């Protein structure tokens, strides 16, 4: 056998082998932790998933784009890979560990390639191609897992934005916002809008911004707070900031942050007391009718 193998022989060898031995490899894979732990209901399910991955890999090999993570073959199994990596992440594995598990899938087909007929050169080329294909699969899995994580983070960020800014009515014509967590531009904008709407709705003469739950106050956060206070004042409501913890007070002084004319109180209770005092003062301003 001296004839030069045609271009792409290695790819067709790998593709053919993956298809021929699909059943066999899928059975072997089903016992690997990656498949076994994800498809816990029946073994058939794991085998079926293995078949799908093998078919996709065969298609990628055929297309000759073994080093391309955007190869059309991968698109078919992307969702399945996402489900698998999510499931493994939930059981406490890091992305690195998942990657090793995917890498371990390479052993079975590699052995079959070793045993395949053909000359040594061809076998070596096929092995190299398979290694490359497996490396690409690993990248695809990592990429999918990261994408999944990004989506989770984005979803939670959105939920946080919606949930963490309730405006509560504390007393007649008195509203309060208990701020929890870090205050960034987007959140402070939401807080300001919600507070101003609540001032209109409850006809509030006073608003309390409680920052007990805000971990740190830097110049940006202070600026956001002062903007909110200024906007509330323009609407005709006094705004008091409460819940500045001693450590935060010290940091603010050290940073040279001045809240200017803003009234502050140590606790929400103190702010409530002040608000009720002011209301009774206002009430005294008008003589009762009877």
């Amino acid at each position: 056998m001296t004839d030069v193998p045609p271009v792409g022989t290695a790819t067709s060898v790998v593709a053919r082998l993956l298809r021929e031995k699909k059943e066999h490899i899928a059975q072997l894979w089903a016992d690997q932790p990656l498949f076994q732990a994800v498809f816990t209901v029946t073994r058939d399910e794991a085998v079926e998933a293995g078949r799908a991955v093998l078919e996709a890999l065969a298609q990628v090999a055929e297309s000759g784009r073994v080093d391309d993570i955007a190869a059309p073959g991968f698109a078919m199994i992307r969702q399945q890979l996402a489900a698998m990596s999510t499931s493994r992440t939930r059981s406490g594995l890091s992305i690195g560990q998942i990657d090793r598990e995917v890498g371990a899938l390479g052993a079975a087909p590699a052995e079959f390639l070793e045993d395949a007929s053909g000359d040594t050169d061809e076998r070596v080329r096929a092995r190299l191609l398979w290694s490359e294909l497996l490396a690409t699969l690993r990248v695809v899995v990592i990429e999918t897992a990261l994408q999944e994580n990004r989506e989770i983070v984005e979803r939670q960020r959105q939920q946080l934005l919606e949930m963490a800014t309730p405006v509560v009515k504390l007393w007649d014509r008195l509203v309060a916002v208990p701020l929890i967590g870090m205050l960034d531009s987007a959140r402070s904008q939401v807080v300001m809008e919600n507070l101003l709407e609540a001032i209109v709705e409850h006809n509030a003469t006073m608003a309390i911004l409680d920052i007990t739950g805000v971990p740190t106050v830097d110049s940006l956060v202070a600026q956001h707070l002062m903007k909110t206070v200024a906007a509330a004042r323009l609407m005709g409501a006094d705004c008091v900031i409460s819940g500045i913890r001693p450590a935060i007070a010290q940091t603010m002084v050290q940073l040279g942050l001045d809240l200017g004319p803003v009234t502050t109180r140590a606790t929400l209770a103190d702010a409530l007391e002040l608000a009720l005092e002011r209301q009774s003062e206002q009430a005294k301003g008008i003589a009762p009718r009877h």
Partner: protein
Amino acid sequence: MQPGASSVPVLDLGGILLISIQGELPDDAAVDLRTDVTLAVSETGARGVIIDISGLDMVDSFLARVLAEVAASARLLAAQAVLVGMRPSVAITLVELGLALPGLETSRTVIEAASRFGVEIRDRGDQPAARGTDRTPT
């Protein structure tokens, strides 16, 4: 400039002037209003000026300045100006523009603003200002 040149009426409530701005207020109308208010304060000797802007859905930097000027000139004539009924969107815009109008008094409603000057406007039979603190049954 003759008094009454502005399209916005200046109502005398007996010691207090009430100005309710409805719809858009063009720049020249705003300047006319400033003149009107100043003249009206000096004529009536009013001690308070209530400017209701609940009908405005936009206040630009010029109008904000004019309002501040109305307040400042009223103060020179011993009258206190109170800005009433600003909408949330207007407040946000002004704050973002850096126009927090520090010298201007503000109130939520005309009733509240009037009560600052000792004038009681009641929309119902109850006592609006006594709510909240006097909850105990008598």
